[in-house]
């Protein structure tokens, strides 16, 4: 009896529909499109800032367009989803061993969330939001 193994091909463009966890992974990866686009917006903002007061205020006004508002909503969701998945993932990359025990993963992730909230509040305070 000879071997004649059958090779099943993994569909290269639709494999992520096979399991819900793959779709969650792709959602996480797609945040890079919106975050990247937002960073491009930041570069544009810097150009406007360097071009003087009129240019900067024109930029702030342009931010108020409906397209900009929709983009900001998407960018905010993407950024928050990136942050949450990043903090949850970090615990895997940095196990903290104390004696024979390990610090529970959610303590490490939790510390990141706390730092995130604190940092965000500091930035909001410096920006005069409160």
């Amino acid at each position: 009896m000879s071997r004649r193994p059958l090779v099943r091909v993994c569909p290269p463009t639709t494999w992520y529909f096979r399991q819900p966890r793959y779709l969650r992974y792709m959602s996480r990866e797609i945040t890079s499109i919106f975050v990247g686009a937002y960073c491009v917006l930041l570069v544009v903002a810097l150009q406007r800032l360097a071009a003087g007061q009129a240019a900067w205020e024109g930029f702030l006004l342009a931010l108020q367009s409906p397209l900009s508002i929709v983009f900001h909503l998407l960018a905010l969701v993407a950024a928050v989803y990136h942050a949450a998945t990043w903090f949850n993932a970090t615990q895997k990359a940095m196990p903290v061993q104390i004696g024979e025990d390990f610090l529970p993963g959610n303590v490490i992730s939790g510390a990141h969330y706390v730092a995130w909230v604190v940092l965000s509040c500091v930035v909001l305070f410096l920006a005069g939001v409160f």
Partner: protein
Amino acid sequence: MAKSHKPVVWFPFAAGGTVIAFFIPVIVLLTSMAALGHVPDGLTYERMHAFAGSALGKLVIISVVALSLWSSAHRLRCTCFDFGLRADKAVATVLYLAAVAGSVAAAVYLLRI
């Protein structure tokens, strides 16, 4: 196969991903407020110009922008591969060049302030 030079692109990706996670959400929140017509005091021309004019401000801004651009570019490169776009070298070149171009542009604008 020889040991990979992936760390060259991965280390900045990891640093950038951390920067994005901690800082981008709140920055998006700030420009969102501006988009809704409530410009926070810190986003006025005087305050922003003063911040970007300082050495510390320049350092903070370029670090956040450059690392975030690079991290997004790397993740997008991997995502393209996952979506079935197999020309990895071409995709990588385009995306990393774009990230570097954006960072250089940001630096140039910052130096004008």
